[in-house]
């Protein structure tokens, strides 16, 4: 039972992180129907920025919560800026092109950003300081859940609620939903579609940065390559839940997190990365539009 609950908490933690990244994929896909391959790299850049800022602040004598807050704010701002720029440079000129062009441009952007960080920083793993505070309230449950895991799960839940409120009740959220539903019609009723697209990239990238800081604190080391595999898994989660659907992305991420956690715990840890893809292929065979996605009928 103990082993089970350990795996359960592990799965929940993984799932939360995947959800934060997957939301960026699914929102972007909902708006412009593009797999933003560079999204994983935005997450990696978020983690790197947080590491750099935190180190500079720590070395200049600051400590505790202020480092965490400042590093997170800067990382979120920078990730959002990168997301915004990537969209303007690599995707916006291709709005009218065929489906394949933006996808290849996205792969190119992803390779570029990886190597940019590799060359400007380091090819090695950097130790990432655990910025998250130790929570004393959790002491009686230490065997069950660590404070890092607890913070990850709680903050993800809070962010999900905020995001849902944003999309459901604000003017911007309404514009986003309208654009996702029908781009041309949204333009006709006066929605600034370009700004909506930019906003989507900014929100998605900010979420990815938060995910980056949380998971880097959890794992304790980062390098330029972490974005690639995390990005692919988060995308898997988004497809699993039905791409374009926000609750679907969260559900898909949790399913993926549990599958990986229990898979490595009970089957074999060698095939950790394979479970995600096997699950994806199985779900797509039986339900090609994902768990919560709706099938769109084609017209000729």
């Amino acid at each position, binding site marked *: 039972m103990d082993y089970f609950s350990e795996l359960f908490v592990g799965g929940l933690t993984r799932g939360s992180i995947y959800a934060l990244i997957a939301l960026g994929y699914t929102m972007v896909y909902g708006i412009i129907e593009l797999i933003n391959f560079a999204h994983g790299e935005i997450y990696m850049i978020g983690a790197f920025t947080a590491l750099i800022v935190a180190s*500079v602040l720590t070395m200049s004598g600051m400590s505790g919560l202020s480092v965490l807050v400042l590093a997170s704010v800067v990382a979120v701002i920078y990730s959002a800026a990168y997301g915004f720029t990537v969209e303007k440079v690599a995707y916006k*000129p291709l709005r009218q092109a065929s489906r394949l062009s933006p*996808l290849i441009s996205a*792969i190119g952007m992803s390779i570029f950003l990886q190597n940019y960080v590799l060359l400007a920083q380091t090819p090695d793993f*950097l130790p990432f300081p655990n910025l998250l505070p130790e929570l004393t309230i959790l002491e009686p449950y230490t065997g069950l859940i660590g404070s890092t895991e607890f913070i990850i799960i709680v903050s993800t839940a809070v962010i999900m609620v905020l995001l849902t409120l944003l999309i459901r009740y604000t003017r911007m959220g309404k514009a986003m939903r309208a654009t996702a539903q029908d781009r041309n019609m949204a333009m006709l009723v006066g929605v600034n579609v370009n700004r909506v697209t930019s906003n989507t990239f900014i929100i998605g990238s900010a979420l990815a940065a938060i995910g980056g800081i949380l998971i880097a604190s959890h794992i304790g080391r980062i390098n330029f390559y972490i974005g690639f595999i995390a990005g692919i898994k988060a995308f898997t989660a988004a497809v699993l839940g039905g791409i374009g659907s926000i609750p679907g992305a969260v559900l898909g991420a949790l399913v993926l997190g549990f599958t990986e956690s229990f898979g490595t715990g009970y089957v074999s840890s*060698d095939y950790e990365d*394979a479970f995600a893809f096997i699950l994806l292929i199985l779900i*797509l065979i039986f339900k090609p539009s994902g768990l919560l996605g709706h099938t769109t009928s084609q017209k000729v």
Partner: protein
Amino acid sequence: MSTLHATKYLEGLKHSAVISLWFMFLTFPIMVIRVNTIENIIEWRWMNLIYIGCGSFFLSFLWRSLSERGTRKRKLIDARNGEDRSLVQRILGERKIYLPTLGVIAVFTVIFPFFFSTYQTSIMTTALMYVVLGLGLNIVVGQAGLLNLGYVAFYAAGAYTYALLYQHFGIGFWIALPLGALAATLLGILLALPVLRLQGDYLAIVTLGFGEITRIVLENWNEFSFGPSGISGIPRPGLFDMEMSLHEATVYLYFLMILFCIITVFVVNRLQNSRIGRALLALREDEIACQAMGIDKTRIKLTAFALGSTWAGLVGVVFAAKTTFVNPASFTFLESAMILSIVVLGGMGSIPGIIIGAFLLILLPEYLRAFSDYRMLIFGIIMVIMMIFRPQGIIRSVRRTYKFHREEK
């Protein structure tokens, strides 16, 4: 008129200045600061900020003028009834120019190994291998429009077939060659079966997953594939039990690869205008309309995957024979991305384009050793820039057109 021009120019400068400031802000933490968390040292590299500032200023200026030129050119093409044939295409259309060119290239390829070192010949062989890989992937991506991001899995299938057959049964190159192709074809059909219903991006991600699963299995299933350390001591192809030195073997492989290339070009060229080729094209353009025209969608998709992966299997066997060693690290996603870029940069669906693309992408990094650190960086930029300014590739494929000549009475 001139004042208008000057204001426009000034505006462009202002725009570029804003962009360069933005990029200086954007790249600040990653380009300027480098922390060493072990020794607690912060390195400030202010020079990088200046480089970025100047670089992005000029690049944004260039970008602006390029996009303006692009718009102007597009208008020009529209005025010419959409006819846009590049210089190379016009050359290819002229028999008088193109036959001698072909002759020169043929002579050059034949004498190449006798004038250059073993190393050069070996690189050329690699480039030729990528030509065949590119042409194979082109059947799936360029002709059928099915984005396959796991092409490397079939390449691996061919390489491992030869390696394992030799390891367990001592089977030689020539018998392994068709068997490797067969293994890759079967794997292609195996992948195609579950993904028949998927389209576009879903297909892309599943094929990517498939490629990764193949690599992970090869890495971890020690009893089957000998894990990450791979299989070594695979023999090079033989010629009637002749003993060959390393140089002779390399030259022999080079000529073999040329032969394969010619066969591939011939087959792919014939395929393009065949019944299957036209069905693939119809599938790419519109699935529903393609079915309405009486094409069996399932069968044609399976055919596309099978045909594409056969070539990868063949080249896989050659790869194993060339390096005499296979391990899973040779078959990563990056390899798939590389082959895909060859197809895309060369021009999807265009055979000469893909040949040029393969040579550029394989040979340039080899001869630009000084830039080897920046290789992938430049590679990524080129992919983005190509998509924006020339999405049809170096040489765009020309659709077969039929003209009606009305008889005059």
